């Protein structure tokens, strides 16, 4: 359960926009923080060095003056006295051979070879009985008479800061990234949870459960504003759908009643009439017209019903290949009468979630059309194949087909092509097929069968839901 949750959850969070934004932000922040701290360090070091250098230069100038005033002896005294009280100051007075005369350094540092330029060197010092190497920065100066004077200051503390800085910085950046990522993940999960609830609600509404609403939280944040707006929209959709259904229902009722009376009266007239009367044929024709009207009316209502999504309640797991065999069997004799070879490609069980009655009727309409328009000795093939995206149900005939330009038009209500004006039919057959397809989130496509028409309903793959029932089921 937990592993499953993580596996499900982790890629979800990684894919969220919030997490990506946090990630980018954390990186930009880490880089700029590093640059900023680095620059501050560099700047501080530079000014500290400059300060050190100034002090050293001033001291050299001062000592040089002492030397000129008091001579070597006097200079040596000053150097000795400064060496004792000097704190950070390091001094060495040496003769031209480099032998120490006075100062607080044990020996002339090896790295100091040239005069009048700042150098850094290491020097030994006893700290609590132990010999340690420390860093210093200083300048050598050659006095008149060949004596050399080295004035330096200890900078070990500064170097320690530097070492501390270089070891701490990567850790700080690493921790910053880590906390940033954790924070980002938590934040994204929150965002994701809110979005998920909106998504779930929308999906349920699309599935036909119009009464669903996005739950609000106490946060009163922008998600709640979004949810409120969506809820208002959903309310509107629900009201519209309800209104549409009410209109359809009352139209259905209010038209059925007079149609019923009309047919009743015609039938009554027919019963009373002498079958030999010249009016008998008229009344029979009137009844036939009425029946055509009723058929059109029923087909329109059925399309409205399919489009309203109300029929989703009657959806079940059905075997498409069984539906095909049944409908094909119903129409087989009709095809045979016209000498049309009607073939069904056998397939295994192809399960889809659907309304058996409506799919059967849609398929019946397609086969009926195919038989109607395919000339004698023609062929009709019915088959269902599994595709990467779902299941395709195809009825292909060898009839005249439909011009590319007319293909989208024939699916519209009441559109009948010139060629078929005089054959019986309501002109709603393909519209119903398209509406049934829409109800099943499937698509109706009309293609060239070279020659003939190839009508395909592409059903999407059924999500494997074991216990989920349709939203509108009683």
């Amino acid at each position, binding site marked *: 359960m937990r592993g499953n949750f993580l596996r499900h959850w982790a890629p979800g969070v990684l894919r969220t926009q919030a997490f990506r934004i946090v990630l980018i932000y954390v990186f930009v922040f880490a880089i700029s923080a590093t640059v900023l701290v680095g620059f501050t360090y560099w700047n501080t070091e530079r000014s500290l060095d400059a300060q050190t250098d100034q002090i050293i230069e001033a001291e050299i100038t001062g000592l040089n003056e002492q030397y000129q005033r008091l001579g070597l002896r006097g200079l040596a005294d000053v150097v000795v006295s400064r060496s004792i009280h000097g704190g950070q100051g390091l001094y060495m007075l040496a003769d031209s051979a480099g032998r120490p005369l006075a100062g607080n350094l044990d020996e002339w540092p090896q790295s100091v070879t040239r005069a009048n330029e700042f150098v850094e060197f290491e020097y030994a010092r006893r700290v609590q009985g132990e010999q340690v190497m420390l860093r210093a920065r200083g300048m050598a100066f050659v006095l008149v008479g060949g004596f050399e004077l080295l004035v330096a200051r200890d900078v070990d503390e500064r170097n320690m800061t530097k070492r501390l800085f270089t070891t701490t910085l990567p850790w700080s950046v690493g921790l910053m990234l880590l906390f940033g990522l954790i924070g980002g993940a938590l934040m994204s999960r929150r965002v994701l949870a809110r979005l998920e609830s909106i998504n779930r609600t929308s999906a349920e509404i699309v599935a036909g459960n119009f009464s669903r609403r996005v739950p609000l939280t106490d946060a009163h944040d922008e998600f709640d504003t979004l949810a409120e707006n969506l809820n208002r929209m959903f309310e509107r959709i629900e009201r519209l759908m309800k209104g549409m259904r009410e209109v359809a*229902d009352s139209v*259905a*009722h209010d038209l*059925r*009643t007079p*149609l*019923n*009376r*009309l*047919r*009743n*009266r015609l*039938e*009554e007239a027919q*019963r009373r009439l002498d079958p030999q009367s010249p009016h008998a044929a008229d009344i029979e024709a009137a009844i036939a017209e*009425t*029946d055509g009207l*009723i*058929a059109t009316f*029923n087909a329109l*209502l*059925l399309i409205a*019903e399919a489009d309203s999504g*109300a*029929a989703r*309640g*009657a959806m079940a797991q059905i075997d498409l290949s069984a539906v095909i065999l*049944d409908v094909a*069997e*119903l*129409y087989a*004799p*009709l095809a045979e*009468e016209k000498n049309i070879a009607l073939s069904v490609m056998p397939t295994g069980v192809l399960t889809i979630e659907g*309304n058996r*009655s*409506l799919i*059967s*009727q849609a398929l*019946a*309409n397609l086969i*009926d059309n195919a*038989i*109607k328009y395919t000339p004698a000795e023609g062929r009709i093939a019915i088959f269902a194949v599994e595709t990467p995206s779902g299941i395709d149900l195809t009825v292909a005939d060898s009839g005249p087909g439909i011009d590319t330009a007319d293909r989208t038009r024939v699916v519209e209500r009441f559109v009948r092509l010139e060629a078929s004006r005089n054959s*019986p*039919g*309501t002109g709603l*057959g393909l519209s119903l097929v398209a509406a049934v397809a829409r109800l099943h989130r499937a698509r109706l496509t009309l293609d060239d069968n070279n020659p003939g028409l190839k009508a395909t309903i592409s059903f999407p793959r059924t999500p494997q839901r074991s216990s989920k029932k349709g939203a509108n089921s*009683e």
Partner: protein
Amino acid sequence: MRILVVEDDLEAQRYLVNGLKEAGHVVDDAADGDTGLTLALSRPYDCAIIDRMLPKMDGLNIVAEMREHGNNMPILFLSALSEVDDRVKGLKAGGDDYLTKPYAFVELLARIDALMRRRSPAAVKTKLSVGDLELDLLTRIATRASQTIDLQPREFRLLEYLMRHAGQVVTRTMLLESVWEYHFDPQTNVIDVHISRLRAKIDKGFSAALLHTVRGAGYMIRAR
């Protein structure tokens, strides 16, 4: 036969009652749900025709109430509601058949005849026969004048339905509903083609035809 009609549209009611009387039935009528239920529970009818949407009490409730009182008279729903769901609801509530308005009177007549016939003692039969045509429901073999007739499974079911209603008009819609279990209008005369194939198998070569076409209504199988 005694038939109860519960219908609030008086014009439709008058027509229905007249038609049924002309067909030789004794008819009582009610224009609202309450009266309908009272009549249904107090008198013995062979069949009731009930509208779905009625004042005072909905047709579904009448039937549910009747069934609760142990009344099992055959009931046909007559309704302006045509959705797939409505039909299922009607049958679930205890209706035996469902017919959508507008309907053809012959269709209604054929259906209530079938309903009333179903009610009469239906001993479990293993053999059906009409004239010299016999259908063995156990071995699934059809014979006429001792000659075996080769039938496809669906043809067998079609013949079985016709023979169970021998002497009665059976409409195309009834056949489509009971034999194929489809509740839609197939537009073309598919049923006629199936019937003519069946006819070729059972009547061809025999002097007396058993399967008859009833003009403007449907089909009937009968001897003589």
